[in-house]
Each structure stands twice: as C-alpha cells, then as structure tokens.
C-alpha cells in the first residue's frame, strides 16, 4: 500500500501576533491576606513571589500564611458566621451572591487577563471558559440561597459553620467560585486557600468582595503553600474541608480529618478514558480528543488522557490526530490565537518531562507536533502523543497533568469497558459513537463521575461533578453541590 499522503500546515500565510492588551491591569507589588474584610500582613512577615509562567517574571509577591494567620482567619470566619451570615435572611444572602456574580461579569476582562498572566492559560480560554463559568456558578447558587427547603423536601437544611477550602492552580478563579458559591448560599462562612502558583485572581476576588460590601469575615483568603493548607485542615475551628487537588494530598487530608467531626469532600486526580468507536463522527471525535487532552495544557483533572480507538479506525484516527496537532499554536498565553499556553510552573514542567522520558523508556511510540515554541525561559511543552501504549505502562496508569496523550486500540465494547474501568481513578470519561444504544450501554457500566457522549469537557453549574475511587468523593455543582455544605435535619 502506498504511504498515506500528509498535509502541510507550514503555510506562507501565517497569523500575525494578536496580543490581548494588558496595560490596564493594576497589580500591587505585594499582597497581604484578606482576613475579616481587610487586607492584613502575615503574622510572620513572610512573602513569596508569584511568577508569570510564560516568561518567568515575577508578577507580585504574596503573603505566606502561617498557622497563626489561619487561626486569625478561622476566628474571623466564626465571628462573621455567628454575628452576620447565619442570622441573615436567606434572601439577603442571595442578594450578596448575585452581586458578586454581576461584578465578576463587569470585570471579566481584567480577571481573564490576570488569570492568563499568572497561570499561563490561553486568553481565549480565560475569556470564554474560566471567567464566564465562575460568574455562572455564583448566579446559579445565589438562586438557591432562599430555596434550600425546596431543594431537600421534608428535611430542614442547616448550615455547617466555617468551611476551609483549598483549591488548585489549574482553574484558579473558577475553582474559587465552585467552592465559595455553594458554601455561601448555604449560609457558611469561608477560609479559602488558593494555590501558591496562582493566587492573584483570588486576591482580586477579595478586592471585589470588599467592593461588594460583604459583611467582614464572611470570606477570608489566606495565601500560601502546602503548610498553609495543612494548618487550615488541622484547625479545630473548621467544620468542613473542601479540597480540590492531587490524590496524594487528598489522602493526607482524609487521614488528618479521620478522628474529627469535620465533613470533607475531595475532588482529586483522574485518568479518563476517551473512547472512539468505528461508527463515530471521526472528524468531530478528533476535535474531542484535542479538546479532551490539550485544553488548558492538559492541566485538567478530567482530561481525556487515555485514548481508546477501535482498531478498525485506529490508523485513520491517528493520522487525522497528527495532522490536527500540527495546527495547534503553542505560545504567548495573551495572544488571542494561542491554543496551548505555558505549563503552570517549572516544577510541573519537570514532572511532565519526566513522564515523557518514562513513556519513551517504556517503549510506547513517541510523537510530538513540530510547532515552534518561544525560546524565552517560559515553561513550554509541545502537544505529545504516545502511540501503541499498554495498560501496564505507567504513562497509562498515572496522572501526568500535562499535554500528553496515551493511545491504545481496542476491538470490542466489552474489552474497552474493562480497560477503561481498569484504573484507580474514576472522575470522567468520553464516548464517541453514532449509536445511542451503545452510549447507554457504556455509560451504565463505566465507573466515572462524569461521562460525555460525542463531546468533551463541557461544564455547567447545574451539573454535578465528582469522582469514583481515588478521584475523590462528594459532588460539586448542581443540587448535589448544596448537600456538601448542609446538615440535613
């Protein structure tokens, strides 16, 4: 058979740079903790820098939270809970949350640019996904604030008290919204710890909350790294811990809270199967593969990082995928045409590169797109494939959290269900077929919290999100997301 012809995407017609303006962004050189409605310096006086991963420049320095800072924040949160928030009429609580939602929309462009500066994600994604969804979460839960008794008929829902919330660096503002909106709607007060590499939009949110005139102490934001998070988890004044992040840290949190009365919810890692059947709309499935693994540089807990392609279409799907990868633009996160931005941190880049080495050593066939990447000290990684991977490869089993896709073939529905479920994770999955009955057969047997059919990475505040097995427990979003912040008497 003649070799299949390849397409050439190295065109004479190149897109000129189209950077989003960032002149209007006002960042302070230094940020303090947001405690009791005011910005207060850290007790121990320590700060750490937050960097722009696209060039390594320092954007600002932020307070490094100690146990003493956490203690202050929890006490302020308790005071606000008892004095204001639990006593306020639910309708008024709803009004405050609606106000936050509207103000996020008003400042959407500012939030989007800062999100891309601090986290490295393409501005197109910050503008079209992160910020609008964050506002949508506040809008959605604001509506529930005075309807909790309708959400849980014949029960009396009661708030928990002070919630400690720890969020990751992949969707900084959106994760803050996922955590804050239901907690506040249910009448709890909050101490939130953003990730150490991406604290800026949470601190901008603190400014917004100040402008929204929320009672002091209802939302407190303490910045820092793992030790700060540990102090929050271990603080006896916290009634609830909500964590999104790595499975490793999730296990530590579960151990730490085991002998306490703290309620916990954990949203952890994933290694989702994205399954392409021979009767799928293949060109659209290829878009789904790209979106599944290269969205947000692959820094997505529900990323479709294990691709299963039915053997009869494997060759053509891989060819289409390789050609499609050549059109992905890697580079300046602030450029409107960028598809893949900067890897969030140097440490994460090193982890991804280690997995790429591992994949090569394990014997999977390595393929990377030929796109140029900036040579400027930023954290860049070309979109990567590993073909002919095996279930036993570590790159198939472990979460890489980067733009690296492991591709396997399968032959029958039974085989792919078994392989897709053969993981210690279970957060999400994707299935591509033109046949509705096949979708239902598969979704009924998959052990994954979210399953997308003929689409991928679709999020909506009305839809619950959460995992099976080591992907965590508890649900965020939708009606289910309320239950995590209530006692149901």
């Amino acid at each position, binding site marked *: 058979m*003649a070799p*299949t*012809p390849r*397409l*050439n*995407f*190295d*065109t*004479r*017609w*190149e*897109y*000129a*740079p*189209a950077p989003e303006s960032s002149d209007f962004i006002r960042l302070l050189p230094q940020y303090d903790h947001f405690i009791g409605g005011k910005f207060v310096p850290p007790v121990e006086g320590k700060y750490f820098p937050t960097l722009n991963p696209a060039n390594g420049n320092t954007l600002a320095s932020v307070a490094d939270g100690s146990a003493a800072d956490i203690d202050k924040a929890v006490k302020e949160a308790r005071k606000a809970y008892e004095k204001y928030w639990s006593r306020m009429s639910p309708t008024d609580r709803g009004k405050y949350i609606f106000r936050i939602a509207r103000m996020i929309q008003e400042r959407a462009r500012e939030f989007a640019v800062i999100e891309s500066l601090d986290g490295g994600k393409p501005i*197109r994604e910050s503008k079209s996904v992160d910020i609008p969804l964050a506002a949508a979460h506040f809008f959605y839960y604001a509506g529930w604030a005075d309807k909790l008794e309708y959400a849980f008929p014949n029960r009396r829902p009661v708030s928990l008290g002070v919630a400690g919330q720890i969020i990751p660096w992949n969707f900084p503002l959106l994760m803050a919204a996922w955590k804050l909106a239901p907690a506040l709607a249910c009448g709890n007060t909050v101490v939130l710890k953003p990730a150490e590499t991406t604290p800026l939009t949470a601190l901008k949110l603190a400014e917004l909350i100040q402008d929204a005139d929320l009672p002091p102490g209802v939302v407190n934001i303490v910045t820092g790294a793992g030790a700060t998070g540990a102090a929050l988890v271990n603080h006896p004044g916290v009634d609830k811990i909500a964590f999104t992040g790595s499975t490793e840290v999730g296990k530590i949190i579960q151990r730490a809270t085991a002998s306490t009365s703290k309620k916990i919810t954990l949203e952890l890692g994933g290694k989702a199967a994205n399954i392409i059947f021979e*009767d*799928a*709309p*293949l*060109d*659209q499935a290829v*878009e*789904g593969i790209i979106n599944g693994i290269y969205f947000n540089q692959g820094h997505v807990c529900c990323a479709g990082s294990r691709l299963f392609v039915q053997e009869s279409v494997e060759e*053509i799907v891989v*060819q289409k995928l390789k*050609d499609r990868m*050549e*059109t992905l633009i890697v580079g300046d996160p602030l450029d*409107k*045409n960028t598809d893949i931005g900067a890897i969030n941190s140097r440490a994460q880049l090193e982890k991804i590169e280690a997995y790429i080495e591992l994949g090569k050593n394990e014997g999977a066939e390595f393929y990377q797109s030929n796109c140029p990447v900036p040579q400027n000290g930023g954290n860049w990684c070309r979109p990567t494939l590993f073909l002919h991977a095996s279930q036993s490869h570590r790159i198939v089993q472990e979460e890489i959290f980067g733009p690296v896709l492991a591709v396997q073939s399968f032959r029958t529905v039974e085989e792919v269900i078994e392989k897709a479920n053969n993981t210690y994770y279970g957060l999400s999955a994707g299935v591509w077929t*033109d046949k509705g009955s096949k979708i239902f057969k598969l979704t009924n047997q998959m052990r994954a919290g979210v399953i997308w059919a*003929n*689409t991928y990475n679709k999020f909506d505040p009305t839809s619950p999100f959460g995992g099976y097995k080591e992907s965590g427990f508890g649900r965020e979003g939708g009606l289910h997301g309320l239950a995590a912040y209530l006692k149901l008497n």
Partner: protein
Amino acid sequence: MTIDQVSVEERVARLSSRSIKNESKLHALKLSLSMLDLTTLAGNDTPGKVRQLCYKAAHVHDAFPGLPTVAAVCVYPTLVKVARKALEGTPIKVASVATAFPSGQASREVKLDDTRFAVGEGADEVDMVISRGRFLQGDYTFVFDEIASVKEACGPAHLKVILETGELSTLDNVRKASDIAMEAGADFIKTSTGKVQPAATLPVTLVMLEAIRDYYYRTGRMVGMKPAGGISTAKLALQYLVVLRETLGEAWLTPDYFRFGASSLANDLLMQILKQTTGVYQSIDYFSKD
C-alpha cells in the same frame, strides 16, 4: 462517515474567532481576491453586462497597482463566447454553469448537450448541478453516473460539481454527496447555485473540506472547493480561509484549489485592502460596480 452537527458548529465558531491582523490580513485579502469567481447568473444578462464584468475581472482597481486579477468569470453557456473574447490575453478562466442550472431538472441528453455547448464555446471550467431529487430518493447510482458522464462530456474542461447543500437538509447528506461527486471525477466540489437559501455556510464548507481531506488521504488526488453564494464581506471570506488553512493546509491555499463564488465580495475586499494599506476607509463610490 457520519457527521456531528453540534461539534461542526463549535469547530467553526472556534476557527471564526482567529484574530487576523496587519500583514497577515493583507495577505489573506489579496489571496481572497485572487480566488474569486466573479459571477453573473441572471436571466437578463447581456453581452454588454458580461463585457463590463470581464474588464473588472482583469482590472479590479487600476487606481491601486499590484493587485491580483480574479480567478475566473462565471456566466451562463450562451455568454461564454463573449467572456472568452473579453478575457483574451488574460490568465482569467471562463467558467460556465451547465446541466440545466440551477434546478437540474432536465433529461440526461439535455444536460450533456448543455455541457458540450459550454465547452465548445470556450469554457475552461464547467459548474454542474447534481440531481438533488434523485439524491434524496436514495438513487445514488443515478447521481454518480450523471456526474461521471458530465465529466466525460467536459473533456479537458475542469468540472465543478454543485451539491446545492441548501436543499440537502443534513450535514450527513452533504458529506455523502461530496464523496459521490469526488468518486465520480469532480475536480472541484461547490456548495450552491446562489439561487437557493441557505447558500454557502461555514459548517457546510468545513464538512466538504473534511471530505476532500479524506479523499486525499485515500487516493492522493487533490480536489478543489468552492463555497458560493452569501459570502459578501471580506471578514467572512477570511473566516473561510482560516477554515481552509486549518483543515487542508498550504497546498489548497491557491486559486487552483479554492474559489469563492461571489459578485459583491470583490468590492469589499478592495475596500479592506485599501484600508489596510492607507489606514483609512474610502467611500464605496470610489469602487466600480459592474
């Protein structure tokens, strides 16, 4: 091959948000101009009208030197001879619609005669219409045979096959008709006659380009694409080019493999080219209407 309409629309929306600026924009505007099939297909077309259009085709805006000519002038068969003469000495091709355009409701003999007449009068390219009724009846063999026999009647002339996607209802049908046309020998596949709404759309064009891609993967033969009807602004033309660039790449970014069937697009492209070069918009009265 099945098509998922929702995903196609998402992909098109995503590609349409590409930001094309500065020298990149100027390059694309000039490229679009060179890909134009300047078209007049009205019942009241006359030799005089066609001659004026042909002059425009070769001299799109003499006040601004350095512009390309358009790719072709597209007329009814009876006016091919006029266009042929008017375009003598230019690289511009003469395209003729044929096969009982636009409805295609005629016997095979009439359609083949129509084609042979157009080619005999000097058409370089023939734009035929498929029998949509037969296609929707499921008579794919009829549709295939008809295209193959028209291709034969074309002789050396290039064959563009109009699917009239506005009458095919689904993207699955668009895909199927594209595959049939290419297998039957089409040199180009074309969306629309311009006489039916909707005419060309970005989702339909993407599906057809993907069909061309699969055919190329399978056979190594490059088939051209011509969206026609409803593309009247430079902004929209650039969105088509982005879809083309990111679906088929460099080899198709030429008038040999991509055409716009349009008439009013030319002046908008000219306006934008001049704006891009001089920094200011000029009144529409500075551009000739033919």
